[in-house]
């Protein structure tokens, strides 16, 4: 067992957790959109009440009520990081919860700033951390509020936030989990889940399979202990949710275990699996006071399934009922006893014992099959780390190759420029440079392939050392790729380099840099100006009309990049393709401005 305190391990003290729960419970049913509590000296609580109609859980026309997080203008601006960078997959979240959060964000009394924004600002001015919390669907809104806060304030370092949920349904897909890890925000999310609570599993089933029962169940939750005929609906509800959970969990487990059976692919065309996945830290309450702490999202998904299985068929009715009742049962687990003493941290999943070992996992009812699936989840994470180490070890080889090309560039800097030398391929040296380029491209393509399949740790695309290496590589080698492309006139096979031919190994690092520096898409295209030169040249020499704005933009760009030292001065050498364009451009030359001046300077320098 760990000697660290709970507070240290999850970054929030027991007292604040208990307070969060008390507040969530008090505000479980409320007409307010959110409630602010400032009674504590350690934190400001913003509590979100639950919502209890089916359309507040599933909206829109998708099977699982999902939507892309950037589907609306406001949300596109509010959640810029919720995507994968290179692959540019946008996160999917529950539409109903997103709409609910939109109400929160825009709720204002007298057309001034929104009330919510005011409260957040106030709390930050008071230098207190904010705890976003809620029970049930209130927890889901708290999650969105926390992501919103982190997107808005984490860069400026002015405030901190935590998200503590109790029995929250799932909110977003794998990309949310991926992005939170990359931004290192994952640790701010703590979800408490009762072993049998059905709610965190509900969104794993399509609405069509549970609609009728869900209405009753939600109604039951607000009926506050009044008698309600659960018997008639509980077994169907439980079975349908679990059937879908089982399909998703077995599919995920097959992938974790590296199964290649093509049947898996075929089946996904026949049944739609839920897009939602857990993220952040989960603390499962076993029901007898023990708490199980896990932060591997794949393992949490497996546990959501396996902890709710039956030991015997005749338990069905009772389990189905307790699955619904457990949602209202957090009080005894969380308030009555010390959390600190009862929490068990489950890590090193890949070494989890397979037999029941008297640990808290037994109290979650984990079968051997379940334990194997958790092991597989741990193993996958380890494999990702190994992949990372493997490519880290290649850095030396990459730097070596780039050094060679750097020398090649310097060698040609006084003659024709390495772009044009490479394009001509007259010398053995040029051939060697090509082999170097191909070897480097091979290594990078491999990295990109791994990223495409999310086979690298989520943090990879946020790692400065790789962003820098990628940028360096892109600036040095991409001109050679362009040279090669136009040397073989591939633009005529497949289209212009920028639209058809640009390899991912350059697109991805460019997006990394743009993300890191918080810039707009396609603003860091300095490494591919040669492609624009070639395209304009082709237009100009075919007697076509060269778009003035395009020509201007290119020239200004080149001037700026040369000044910033991003592009070399060899661009301006006598025989270079750029100079050819320069001649063709004729009246479009910007003699008076930026590049004109540079050009004159350069010519004078080389003469003298």
């Amino acid at each position, binding site marked *: 067992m760990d000697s660290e305190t709970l507070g240290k391990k999850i970054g929030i003290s027991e007292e604040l957790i208990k307070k969060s729960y008390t507040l969530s419970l008090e505000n479980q049913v409320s007409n307010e959109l959110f409630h602010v509590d400032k009674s504590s000296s350690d934190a400001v609580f913003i509590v979100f009440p639950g919502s209890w109609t089916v359309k507040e859980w599933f909206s829109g026309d998708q099977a699982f009520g999902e939507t892309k997080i950037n589907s609306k203008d406001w949300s596109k601006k509010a959640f810029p990081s919720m995507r994968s960078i290179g692959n540019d997959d946008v996160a999917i979240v529950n539409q109903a919860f997103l709409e609910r959060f939109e109400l929160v964000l825009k709720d204002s009394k007298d057309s001034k700033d929104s009330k919510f924004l005011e409260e957040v600002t106030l709390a930050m001015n008071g230098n207190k951390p904010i705890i976003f919390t809620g029970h049930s669907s209130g927890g889901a809104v708290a999650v969105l509020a926390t992501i919103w806060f982190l997107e808005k304030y984490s860069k400026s370092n002015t405030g901190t936030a935590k998200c503590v949920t109790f029995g929250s349904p799932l909110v977003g897909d794998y990309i949310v989990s991926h992005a939170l890890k990359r931004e290192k925000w994952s640790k701010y999310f703590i979800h408490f889940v009762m072993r049998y609570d059905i709610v965190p599993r509900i969104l794993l089933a399509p609405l069509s399979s549970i609609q009728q029962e869900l209405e009753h169940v939600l109604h039951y939750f607000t009926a506050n202990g009044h008698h309600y005929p659960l018997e008639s609906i509980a077994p169907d509800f439980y079975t349908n949710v679990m059937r879908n959970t089982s399909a998703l969990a077995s599919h995920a487990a097959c992938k974790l275990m*590296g199964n290649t*059976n093509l049947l898996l692919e075929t089946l996904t*065309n026949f049944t739609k699996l839920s897009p939602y996945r857990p993220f952040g830290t989960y603390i499962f309450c076993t029901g007898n006071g023990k708490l199980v702490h896990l932060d591997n999202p794949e393992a949490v998904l497996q546990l959501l399934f396996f902890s709710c299985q039956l030991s015997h068929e005749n338990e069905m009715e009772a389990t189905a009922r307790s699955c619904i009742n457990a949602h209202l049962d957090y009080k005894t687990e969380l308030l009555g006893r010390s959390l600190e003493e009862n929490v068990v941290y489950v890590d090193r999943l890949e070494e989890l014992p397979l037999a029941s070992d008297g640990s808290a996992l037994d109290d979650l009812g984990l079968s051997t099959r379940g334990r194997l699936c958790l092991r597989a989840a741990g193993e996958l994470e380890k494999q990702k780390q190994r992949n990372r180490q*493997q490519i880290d070890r290649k850095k030396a080889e990459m730097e070596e190759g780039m050094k060679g090309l750097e020398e090649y560039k310097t060698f040609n800097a006084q003659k024709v420029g390495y772009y044009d030398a490479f394009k001509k391929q007259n010398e053995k040296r040029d051939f060697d440079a090509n082999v170097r380029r191909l070897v480097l491209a091979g290594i990078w393509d491999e990295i990109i392939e791994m990223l495409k399949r999310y086979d690298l740790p989520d943090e990879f695309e946020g790692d400065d050392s790789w962003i820098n290496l990628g940028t360096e590589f892109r600036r040095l080698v991409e001109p050679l790729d362009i040279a090669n492309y136009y040397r073989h006139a591939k633009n*005529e096979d497949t289209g212009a380099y920028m639209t058809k031919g640009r390899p991912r190994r350059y697109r991805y690092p460019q997006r990394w840099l743009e993300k890191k520096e918080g810039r707009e898409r396609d603003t860091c295209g300095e490494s591919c100006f040669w492609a624009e030169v070639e395209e304009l040249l082709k237009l100009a020499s075919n007697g076509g009309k060269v778009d003035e704005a395009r020509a201007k933009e290119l020239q200004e760009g080149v001037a700026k990049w040369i000044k910033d030292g991003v592009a070399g001065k060899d661009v301006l050498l006598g025989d270079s393709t750029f100079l050819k364009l320069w001649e063709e451009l004729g009246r479009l030359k910007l003699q008076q401005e930026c590049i004109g001046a540079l050009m004159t300077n350069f010519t004078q320098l080389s003469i003298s």
Partner: protein
Amino acid sequence: MEAEASPFESSELVASLLASTPLLSESWRLCSVANAAAPLGFVSERIGDVGYFAFSACSIQMITEESEYYSTCRNLVPLDSAGAGDGDRPFSVLTKSSNSSINGEEDEGAVMVHAGLLNLFLFLRSSQAFKDQMSALINGSKSIVITGHSIGGTTASLCALWLLCYLQSVSSTLSVLCITFGSPLLGNESLSRAILRERWGGNFCHVVSKYDIMPRLLFAPLESCTRQLHFLLQYWQMSMLASSPGNFGQYFPVLQLGEEEKAHLFSFISHHNLLVSSVAQAEAREEKANILYWPFGNYMFCSQEGAICLENAASVIEMMHLMFMTGNPSCCIDDHLKYGHYVGKISSQFLNKKSFLQGEVIPESSYEAGVALALQSSGISKQEPAARPAEDCLKKASGMRHMRTPSLNAANLAIRLSKVVPYRAQIEWYMASCDKSDEQLGYYDSFKQRGSSKRDHKVNMNRLLLAGFWNDVLRMLENNELPHDFHKRSKWVNTSQFYKLLVEPLDIAEYYRSGMHRTKGHYLKHGRERRFEIFDRWWRERKVGPEENTSMRSKFAGLTQDSCFWAKVEEATEWLAHVRSESDARKLALLWENINNFERYATRLVDCKEVSKDVLAKNSSYSKWVEDLRELKSQMQQIHPQFPRFRDGELFP
């Protein structure tokens, strides 16, 4: 080498995934409907986006006496014999690829299937009702399940194969899943290989219960027991009819086999299943050829304890044998009728925990534990003699291919690719240097006439090394050692295309240089390696953006866009030579037609600059051919003034 993640056994999880979907129970429901009453031999239905098409088990008598069906069971016919004539080749996609194989292995033999079952399917397919219902399903669904119980299952398999062939030919993305229950075997090993090659194994799931004798029957030579089979088939059919709700309580005369006969049949089939099983494990090819029937696709074995999915054919055969031998003569007959029970059972099993039985020792390794759980699901208990071999069989099924994970294989392949890239670069370099050379041969002819210089030798070595690399890639892909979407990953599609365009001309040159065309026939028909055809397909099926660039080229392409261009030049050269000596007027006309066709084709290619500039080198085979043709035509002109006049590359009547 990188430490490998510890492997897991997941055949049971695939089964639980399938069991958690409504697919099995819906399919079975429709199968029972079809078995009870399907005057057409099939029924169809749509549930949501999924179309279901079920074949009846009782339609065999529509075309033949059932007993005849079994007495002719050793009578396999080539699948490509099917068709209504006039270019109707419903299975051409499947039969074509068996003609040549990678690694230059010998022809594996034709794809063969059971003659009677093929006839049955073709008969059903020819009806208007089939066409109507099938096209309604194809147009109205996002995915189609084809299913059938017993003999209906084999018809379903044939139908699914036909549909997959058809959908591929029209480049449709509709998904097809074939689910059979207790289906007899259908075809030979070549069929199984061909399905693997098309990567269709995942479109078939054969549900087989632990003791059911039906799926195992065709392992044995049944000529000697036609009488028993006749009774057996009748018994099953009557039972199916009697169990349907519409016929409930009606009296059907059920003819049962005597106990002794049952026992005889059981041991007979058991014995032959064992024989086949032991041969299937052996490496020797010749012996395998003696096994007529061979499973394909996934097998979902189900027992009272659960279900497992296996896809490796040899393991499927062995598992069939091991499960069967734990049964007895009467359950092996009744089990064929119990699929409703099994489907119900496995469809609700996901709710129950899967742990070890009390007191059993749980292995520490994930893999061993997974195997033990799978064994438990297959319903073979540890104490039974079949347990040990079954465990080995499960290990072989997964171990054969998953000792390393597919993604890791792909990653390692990427590393190997980066190591062979320099070979390719050297060939490019060679190509460029030929362009510059004074001989002006172009790199095709330079390579064809190459001497024994070190450089020539090196280029040839590189060509062979690259071929070896790509053959390895394809072998791994066929053995499912690579990720399922490997052939769609742009990196590999592009690299293979580039390889093909650059190196295939050298392969052609080598073919004609070594005179292979004189012994084997021309390259295009007889010499082209299968890898190039596969790469052709990858390239054709790649995802392309909406606007394909169609503008004219300003200069010659870097590489000739038709990698078989030179093979066509070689054939055209031969025609030109024959024209001079041919005297038969009809043959002569044919030759001229060929020549003119080629000329048109080549001229268009050159005009569009779709060829690389080496094609037009002064002394290239192509330039020579053009020159020859011009000369010939002008000669003809002098001898026969009525011969069409030749001017500027065009013919005037």
